[in-house]
């Protein structure tokens, strides 16, 4: 019994929070319990951040309430090196060249203080598993079926369109390693159809261009396929990654070479009021690691170079991008640790260069960053820290600084607080507005040229966060509260007009800077054991916007106010485990859609009303996992939205119905 309780405690400690209040670490075990095969899906299931998605493929979080909704001011870091997965106004998380099965841990960082050398206001750090000794082969195959097909009614007057299967997704890794080195080659494939009825209507015209002479999409039954159908609106994601590492003393040096390709990614863009199809190719090379320079001192470093190309592979997409974005950079920092003190001093440089057929007023930016910090345990139970960081670009600079404290009240109780202020240069936002202002004409060519009002060279966010955590024999609790103050924030506002023929929306965008506002967040997590073989996790995230400028306030209404989740995990046997989770996400209101509230999209015989308000949703998910043949084979069966509620998070977005996912994994070592 005592052993089981200790196991529960160990799980709790590793899956909830590190000592730094703004970091939440998710381990391999928790990822395994979700059973998800896709990165964005897995992250959405475990992230402490509120999320809205228009298609159940694109992940759009608001890290810690400290980034503007759907902003690109958060970043993705793979094994210490940044990965550029932005595409104008979306982050294509699935483009990261890693499979869920390769991930050892995920760290969610919000209200960061610049210690990492970047200026992102939220960060997802992915750490992959280094291959163990000898040869190993890992493989996974997953497929999902979403309910809602017509069934026999296909032959009656009640016929409805078919709903495409999701996947199959597959991953394979072959690795060889020893105590001091490893190398692995991995590949990943994912397919996702964007065929929700409403989306299908919008992409119809664009997809017509894929097949010259054919004016509309083929009927849905022809789209239904277990394998990729290039004629349908579906993304085909493939990647190949070579990783290798060597150990030097107690540190590792890891290198990654990767190619990641997304064929026909249809993501909904508010700026275009419709799905934007892109072919994306990401090439990435990175090196990261650390080496000791003394008993108490080490140097940590990372360097990476990437090239991201937006293109029209088969000359059929309705958008002519001609867009290449190259990033190159490196960071290094010296870390010195004694029994009571930890100090660091770091510097980095990043260069971003863009190529386009348009003549840009400025196609290259160089950012130089410096950061320093110290953390000292001033008494047996009290730790204080301070940090300072700065980013320089041309004639501008932005600063960040923070003070942190941690008080171990008792062995099991910790109270922490942090005050952070971060500035970010406008030119660091690698988004559509920056490049349109510099001459990129894609929006203007479609009559959607934006207007800019009160834009500023930099914005700032100040955060005050207090967190308390307590561990007991049967469980624990963590409560964190934060207030964020935004200065000179930029928001996007539109007044959509409706195009009934395409079920699309159209409005030029007003890019409004100089906005001030506040958000407050409450994050409550409670977990407890339920006997020797089960545990329950309760989480409640509440966000409130207050005392803000009108446009700032309007934009934040599109973020759910609260999310409640209760998950019950059980493992009656070593080879059998399961999870049941109930999640409620509150309603949202999308002010930009108020001008068309109540219009009806006619698609495939359906009448779909467009509403500015998206109702709150409650979903019940359940999964069962079974290990076979000594754990070499694992089967997951995941039922999502068992109650078949109308789960959607966006006025123009897809609706997810009852979905069954089956996944088979194998590991040979």
């Amino acid at each position, binding site marked *: 019994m005592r052993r089981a309780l200790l196991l529960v405690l160990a799980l709790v400690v590793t899956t909830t929070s590190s000592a730094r209040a703004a970091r939440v670490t998710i381990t391999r075990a928790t990822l395994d319990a979700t059973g998800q095969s896709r990165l964005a899906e897995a992250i959405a299931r475990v992230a402490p951040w509120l999320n809205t998605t228009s298609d159940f493929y694109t992940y759009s979080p608001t890290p810690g309430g400290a980034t503007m909704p759907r902003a690109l001011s958060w970043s993705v870091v793979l094994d210490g090196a940044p990965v550029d997965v932005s595409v104008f106004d979306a982050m294509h998380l699935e483009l990261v060249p890693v499979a869920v099965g390769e991930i050892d841990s995920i760290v969610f960082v919000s209200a960061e203080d610049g210690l990492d050398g970047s200026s992102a206001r939220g960060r997802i750090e992915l750490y992959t598993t280094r291959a163990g000794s000898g040869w190993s082969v890992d493989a996974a195959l997953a497929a999902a079926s979403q*309910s809602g097909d017509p*069934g026999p009614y296909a032959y*009656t007057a009640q016929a409805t369109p078919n709903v495409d299967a999701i996947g199959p997704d597959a991953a394979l890794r072959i690795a060889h390693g020893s105590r001091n080195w490893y190398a692995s080659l991995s590949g990943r494939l994912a397919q996702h159809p964007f065929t929700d009825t409403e989306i299908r209507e919008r992409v119809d015209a664009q997809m017509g261009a894929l097949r010259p002479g054919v004016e509309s999409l083929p009927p849905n039954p022809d789209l239904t396929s277990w394998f990729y159908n290039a004629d349908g609106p579906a993304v085909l994601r493939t990647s190949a990654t070579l990783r290798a590492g060597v150990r030097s003393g107690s540190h590792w040096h890891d290198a990654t070479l990767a190619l990641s390709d997304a064929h026909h990614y249809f993501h909904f863009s508010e700026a275009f009021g419709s799905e934007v199809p892109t072919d994306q190719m990401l090439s990435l090379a990175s090196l990261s690691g650390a080496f000791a320079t003394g008993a108490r001192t080490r140097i940590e470093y990372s360097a990476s170079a990437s090239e991201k190309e937006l293109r029209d592979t088969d000359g059929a997409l309705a958008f002519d991008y001609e867009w290449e974005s190259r990033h190159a950079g490196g960071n290094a920092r010296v870390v010195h640790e004694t029994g009571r003190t930890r100090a660091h001093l770091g510097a980095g440089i990043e260069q971003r260069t863009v190529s386009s057929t348009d003549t840009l007023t400025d196609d290259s930016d160089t950012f130089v960053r410096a950061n320093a910090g110290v953390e000292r345990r001033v008494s047996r139970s009290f730790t204080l820290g301070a940090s300072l960081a700065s980013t320089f670009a041309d004639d501008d600079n932005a600063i960040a600084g923070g003070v942190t404290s941690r008080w171990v009240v008792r062995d099991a109780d910790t109270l922490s607080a942090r005050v952070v202020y971060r500035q970010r240069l406008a030119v660091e936002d690698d988004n559509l507005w920056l490049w349109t202002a510099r001459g990129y004409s894609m929006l203007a060519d479609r009559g959607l040229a934006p207007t800019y009002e009160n834009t500023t060279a930099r914005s700032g966010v100040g955060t005050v966060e207090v967190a308390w955590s307590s561990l007991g024999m049967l469980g624990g609790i963590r409560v964190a509260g934060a207030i964020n103050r935004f200065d000179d924030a930029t928001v996007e506002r539109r007044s959509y007009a409706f195009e009934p023929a395409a079920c699309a929306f159209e409005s030029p965008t007003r890019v409004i800077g100089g906005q001030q506002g506040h958000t407050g967040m409450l994050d409550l997590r409670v977990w407890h054991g339920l006997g020797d073989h089960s545990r329950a996790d309760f989480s409640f995230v509440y966000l409130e916007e207050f005392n803000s400028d009108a446009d700032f306030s309007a934009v934040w209404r599109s973020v759910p106010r609260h999310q409640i989740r209760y998950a019950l995990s059980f493992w*009656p046997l070593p080879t059998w485990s399961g999870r049941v989770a109930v999640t409620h996400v509150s309603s949202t209101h999308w002010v930009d859609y108020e001008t068309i509230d109540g219009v009806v999209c006619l698609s495939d015989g359906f009448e779909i009303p467009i509403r500015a308000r998206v109702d709150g949703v409650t979903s019940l998910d359940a999964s069962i996992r079974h290990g076979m043949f000594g754990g070499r084979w694992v089967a997951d069966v995941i039922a999502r939205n068992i109650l078949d509620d109308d789960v959607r998070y966006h006025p123009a977005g897809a609706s997810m*119905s009852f979905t069954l996912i089956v996944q088979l994994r194998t590991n040979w070592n």
Partner: protein
Amino acid sequence: MRPMRALLFSVWLLSAHAAIAVAQVPDAKRPFDRLVVGARATGALDRGDFHESWEPGFGVELDVATPFYAGDLFLLTRVSGNGARDGVDVPDLTTIAIVAGWSASRRIAGPVHVGVNAGLGITEWLFDVDERESVRLEMELCTELGARVSLPVADAWDIVAAATWQATSTYHRIDITYLSLGLARTFGAPDWIGSVLE
């Protein structure tokens, strides 16, 4: 959550609690030590929207169950034919349901056992038309809740009567209640089944 959904969910919860309560009572079975193979004749009881276009046909249920650590695991296949109603322009079809799930039973009086079961699977419809496969075949997810009564009639043989409510998650949901009657035979399970399932 709509009232109907809430009601259905309540039924699920009640069934699950009843099943768990039944399964709490210890019995002499060891996990995976036997297979119970059943064959039953079955027919649809109700007359919903589906049956406005197709005659409710008769069919057969075949299932295999094996003891689990609590209750039993089962795999069921149900095949039934549905002819088009006179005057309705739809093709005849064969319905195939493949369902995996969990069940629990308990002796209540003398040799009579009662049990409950819940399962998840797919329903396939094979249409009697001369078309390509994507039009001849439709399939969708289904869930089932059921109850059954069994009575031993000879060594290792039982008579089984079952009632099963099946909900298939097509856009217009299809709810059908099946009644079935047949025999079940208990065998010793080969070791490899235990190896896989453990």
